[in-house]
Each structure stands twice: as C-alpha cells, then as structure tokens.
C-alpha cells in the first residue's frame, strides 16, 4: 500500500454538450417558452443541477472505465491523440473537476502544472508574482522564502524582478512562471503539455528540470505530444484513446503502439479543421509518385508529401515547414519552403495553396514515420502548427538491405564513397 502513489478505479468523466434537436415551434410556444424556460431553470438552479442539464441531451464521455496504478517514484507518460482525454485525466486527478463515476486514491501532496503562469497578474512585479503564484500552486510562504533566490536565478530575471510582469518579454515571463512551478515540492506532480510553449532554449531548460525532478524520486504524471521527451523522462506510459486506456507498459513500447495507432488511423490523407488564424492547413496527404494517396511507401520508390493551406490576408515571408519523426518521436529532420532550391518568394497573397515535397527513393529506411507541420513567420508568429498530423510507413520491398528487416538501419539510408586500400606498412 505504502508504495502506491495513485490508484485509479473505473474513473469516468462525462461532459454534456449542447445539441438536442428541437422540433419546429410556433411563435406562441416560443413566447410561452421564454416565460416558462427561465422559471424552469430557476427551479433547477435551486435544486442545484447544472445549468440546463435536461436541455442538453448529448453527452460525451471524455474518460470511461479508466483504471491504473502508479507506484511511488514512478514517472509515467500519458500519451494519446488530441481529445483522447489526457487533459481531463489530469484535471480530475488534480481535483479541478469532479469525476462522474469511479474514484481515484491519491497518496501524497499533489502539485499540478496544467499551464505555465496560472494566476500571474500582469500589474504585479516579478517578486510579487513569485509569492502569489507560489501560493496558488499550494506552496507555503516559508517554502517560497527559501526557494526565492533559486527561482530568480533559474528564471534569469534578477534585473527585472521589481518590474511589473506586463513589461516582461514573453520569454522572461515564461521562464519566471516555469521557475516558480518547477520549485514546488509535491509528492506527486501532474504536468500537462506545458513545454509546448517557448523557444528551444526554454524547452531544453524545462526538460532538464523535469529530468531532475524525475530523478529526485518524485511521482510524476506527464502529458506530452513530444515522444522524445516521454521516451527520455518516463519509465512507463499510458496510452489513452477516446477516453479509455488502450496500452500501459514501458514507455518505449507504448510509444510505438501509439505511433502504430496514428499511422493505422491515417489513410494517407488528413483533412484539417480550419483555425481562426490568417493562415491554416486544410489537407495533408502522402502520395505515390503517380499521385495516388497511400500510407505505405516502398523503400525503392519516390513519393510526395502534399500540403494544402489557405491564406486569408497577404503574409510576407511565410514559411511552410515540416519535421519528420521516427517511431520513437525523435526528430529526423526539419525542412521548409525557404530551404527549397526552386522557390524564392515566400510572400503569400490570399488564396488556396498546394505544396508538394518530393522525397527521393532509397532515402528513408523502412519504418514508421510521422510528420509535424507548421505555417509560420520565423521568429515572429505561428499561424498553424500540427504535431504528428499524419503518419506513414516505408516498407521493405526487396532492397539490398532486406536482410536486416529494417532493424538497426537507423532512419536514413546513405550511400557514401568508400575507399579501401590494403596496407603494406609495418605490422
């Protein structure tokens, strides 16, 4: 019992969403309703039911029948697609929202970090925000006093500590916010995708700190889309799909299950929902050299990665980029339109654009890959960014390397010029 940190039994969380179909109503009904409905609602309100519970019949189970155990000191990654219930799980475990069924036993003080800088007030100085944010995160005043210097040093904001944080650069703001959170000392730490913000240096720093926390023997539940981070930080992982746990086990295993899953799901084509931004992706596809949509490519044939995106207003210097990841979530390469040999002008007028990237044969080793795509003005802003948006596999169809069955080849197939000379020198 005492080596258990979290035990979750049949946990479920139901959300109600609007969308009950109403039959045609006469004006008279509408008027009668407009009088009666508020009264009904007030009645319900006094009985303590959620607003308009009965008016909204459609329910989604964001989590259902979730059961697992986490041992003390274990670092567990939680992975799954968007909307799989990862964040809901953390919200339930950190008591932000109540489960609808089942229960969870938590042994120890919980610290949750679902967002960096929760409760920061722009008008207050860095110094003041450290104390306010610390208190919100559940730290005692004495604890903050002790950690204060460490926090300031970690955040690298010594000079600006008495400046209202609204004058901070976004990098400084993030560093300070993370620094406070990183110095909590709960027994159990619940971390959501907080590292998805900030620049590379910041992410590296955060991951470094997370690694330290993990080594200190604390129990950590870590949600991320960054498979590399999960693989490096977590011993074990859970895979959530549509609110249910589909796999648990050592993180490397679960990650490859996840990547299999997202590849399986993809038919070689993904249509994307538009975002409110001025530039957004609408479609991504993997095409054979003939233009046929596919999700498995023969290692000995060329193929194309096909993007379509929509531009709503003229944007100068728009970079269209993608990164390729292997099945463990490690990045293999990053490239973008600006690196193209043929395209010179990155300015975009409003309209629909189609971009195709030609990938030569015998370049990727057999294996499973996934792609992240982004539309951005480098160092200015991101318009659209989709991680692991599509997956595909490169299959062995009798290349010279068939005998290795795709094992131990890495991800890139190379052909270099080698020279071999027999040496006649002394022994």
């Amino acid at each position: 019992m005492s080596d258990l940190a979290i035990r979750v039994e049949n946990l479920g969380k139901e959300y109600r969403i609007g969308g009950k179909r109403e039959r045609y109503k006469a004006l008279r009904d509408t008027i009668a309703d407009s009088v009666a409905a508020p009264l009904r609602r007030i009645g319900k309100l006094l009985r303590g039911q959620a607003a308009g519970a009965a008016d909204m019949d459609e329910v989604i189970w964001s989590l259902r029948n979730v059961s697992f155990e986490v041992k003390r000191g274990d670092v567990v990654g939680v992975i799954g697609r968007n909307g799989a219930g990862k964040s809901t799980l953390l919200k339930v475990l950190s008591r932000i929202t109540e489960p609808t069924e089942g229960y969870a036993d938590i042994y120890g003080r919980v610290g949750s970090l679902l967002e960096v800088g929760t409760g920061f007030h722009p008008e207050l100085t860095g110094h003041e925000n450290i104390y306010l944010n610390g208190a919100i995160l559940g730290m005692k005043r004495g604890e903050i006093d002790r950690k204060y210097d460490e926090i300031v040093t970690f955040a690298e904001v010594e000079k600006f500590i008495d400046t209202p944080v609204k004058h901070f650069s976004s990098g400084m703001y993030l560093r300070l916010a993370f620094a406070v959170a990183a110095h909590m000392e709960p027994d159990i730490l619940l971390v959501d995708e907080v590292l998805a913000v900030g620049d590379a240096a910041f992410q590296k720093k955060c991951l470094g700190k997370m690694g330290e926390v993990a080594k200190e023997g604390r129990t950590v539940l870590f949600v991320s889309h960054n498979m590399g981070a999960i693989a490096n930080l977590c011993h074990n992982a859970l895979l959530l799909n549509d609110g249910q746990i589909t796999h648990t086990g050592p993180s490397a295993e679960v990650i490859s299950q996840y990547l299999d899953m997202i590849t399986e799901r993809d038919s070689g084509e993904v249509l994307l929902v538009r975002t409110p931004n001025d530039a957004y992706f609408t479609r991504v596809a993997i095409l054979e050299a003939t233009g046929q949509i596919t999700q498995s490519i023969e290692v000995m044939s060329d193929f194309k990665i096909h993007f379509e995106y929509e531009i709503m207003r003229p944007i100068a210097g728009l970079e269209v980029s993608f990164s390729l990841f292997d099945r463990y979530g490690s990045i293999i390469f990053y490239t973008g339109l600006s690196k193209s040999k043929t395209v010179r002008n990155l300015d975009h007028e409003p309209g629909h654009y189609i971009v195709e990237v030609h990938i030569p044969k015998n370049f990727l080793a057999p294996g499973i890959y996934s792609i992240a795509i982004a539309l951005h003005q480098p160092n200015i802003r991101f318009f659209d960014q989709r991680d692991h948006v599509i997956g595909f596999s490169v299959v062995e169809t009798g290349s010279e390397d068939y005998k290795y069955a795709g094992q131990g080849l890495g991800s890139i197939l190379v052909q270099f010029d080698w020279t071999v000379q027999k040496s006649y020198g002394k022994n």
Partner: protein
Amino acid sequence: MSIQDQTIQDNTNAKTNVVGAFDMPHIRIQPSRGWVSLRLREVWEYRELLYFLTWRDIKVRYKQTVLGAAWAIIQPFFTMVVFSLFFGNLAKIPSDGIPYPIFSYAALVPWTFFANSLTNSSNSLVQSANLITKIYFPRLTMPFATVLSGIVDFVLAFAVLIAMMLFYNITPTTNVIWLPLFLLLALATSLGVGLWLSAMNVQFRDVRYVVPFLTQFWMFATPIAYPSSLLQEPWHTLYGINPMVGVVEGFRWALLSTNTAPGPIILVSSLAALVILISGAYYFRRMEKTFADVV
C-alpha cells in the same frame, strides 16, 4: 525463541506504524452527491492563499488610475453630498436629530463596503476563470478574498467619517466598542450574498445584469437616506430582516449615539445574515463541482 519472534514482530509493527504516521495525506477523488460538507478546515489550510489573493486585489485595484485610492472616498462622499442636498435640504427628511450629512455618511460607509463587495465578489469566479480551470484550491477563498480586500476602502472612507465627527463636534460614547460587531455583520452579509451571486454567475451570466439593479434596489430598502425610526413597531423590528438595516442603524448608534437603540432589530439582522451566509456557503459548495466545467 518465541519471545524473540514476538519482539521482532512488534518491531515491524512499530515500523509500519511509523511509516503510516509519516505517510502521505490520502485523498479519495470521487463524485459527490447531494449536500456536501463545507470543508472549512481546508479553507483554513489555504489561509495563505486567501491572504495573497486579498493582497493582490488590494494591490491591483487602483493600479493605473489617476486618483488611486481616493476613489474609495469619492464614492460615498459625493453620494452623501447629493443626499444632503436633495433629501436633507429639499425634502427635509428627518435624521434622528443629527446633522443630515453625517447621518447619511455614517450609513454610506458600511453601505459602500457592502455594495462594492457584492459587485466584486459576484464577479470573482468568472474573472478568475483561468485559475479555476487550471488549478485546484478551495473555491470559497475567491469571493472571500474579494470581500476582505474591500476593508481597505472601508478604512479610508471611515477616516473621513472620523474627520466629519470632529467637524460636527460629535464625541462617540462607549457604544463605540460595539462597532467591530457591526462591521462583522456587514462582512457576513456581504460574504453571504457574494457566495450566492458568485456561484450563480458562473452558470447564469444574468447575474451581471442583476447586480447593479439589486444594489440600487437594496440601497433604497436600507435606511441610508432616511431613518428607520419612520417605521412603527412591529414593522421596525421586522425591517431587520434586511441585515443591512441592522448594520446601518448599528453604525449610527455606535458612533453618533442615535436614540434608536438597536435591540431586537440587531438580533433579527444577525439572524438573517447568518441564514444568508450559511445557505450561501452550502449553495456555493454544491455548485462548486461544476465550476471548472461551466465557467
């Protein structure tokens, strides 16, 4: 041999016990049904958060204003001027034998505290939606902190009241020792109403439109511009059902020694305030589980 075994076993037992004592706090997270406990102990454990939230509200309130904390005085003071002009001078409303300006100002000080607390606390949860959806803490601290932070404004407005007493040459009698009690009553009423309104506001943004109307209505239902002595018994005592009647009359009695000795009326007001506070707290706790999903 068996004795030794025994001791060894005892030792292990002791050890497990020690581990148990050192053991982490255990919480069970499960759906709550029906009326739930107020968990006031937890609010007490989070008293530092309460302190910091109150402190933040105070600190931030008059940032980027030109007149700053002077607003705390301007509001009740100019209301008093207007009241004195129209109700005191023109309508000649009686004021229990006290100069009308100080008669109305002594009521406006606790009233302004109440009205501002009401407005601010009813918005407290909605304004902190980002906190509520991202972190756990006893939600009760939120409206509580807003009400507490109003005390600073109250103190400033009260300083003006003291100045006015000096000006009108009014020396308080020993009644003044009861003043904290009336302040407490005002605090309890504000918090009680604040709890009801803030919890409702999460789901029904109608509250936002109700509050200005409610405070205005409530102000005229409270003897601020007129004395409660206009009412005959038993109506006078029943009038105390509005807890702010007790507060206002209490303030006047404690500071200005009006002859309306607040006996039964205070009792009725305290009782009413207690009912509002306790029912508000239970209603709040009951709705609390839906806050993060709905806000």
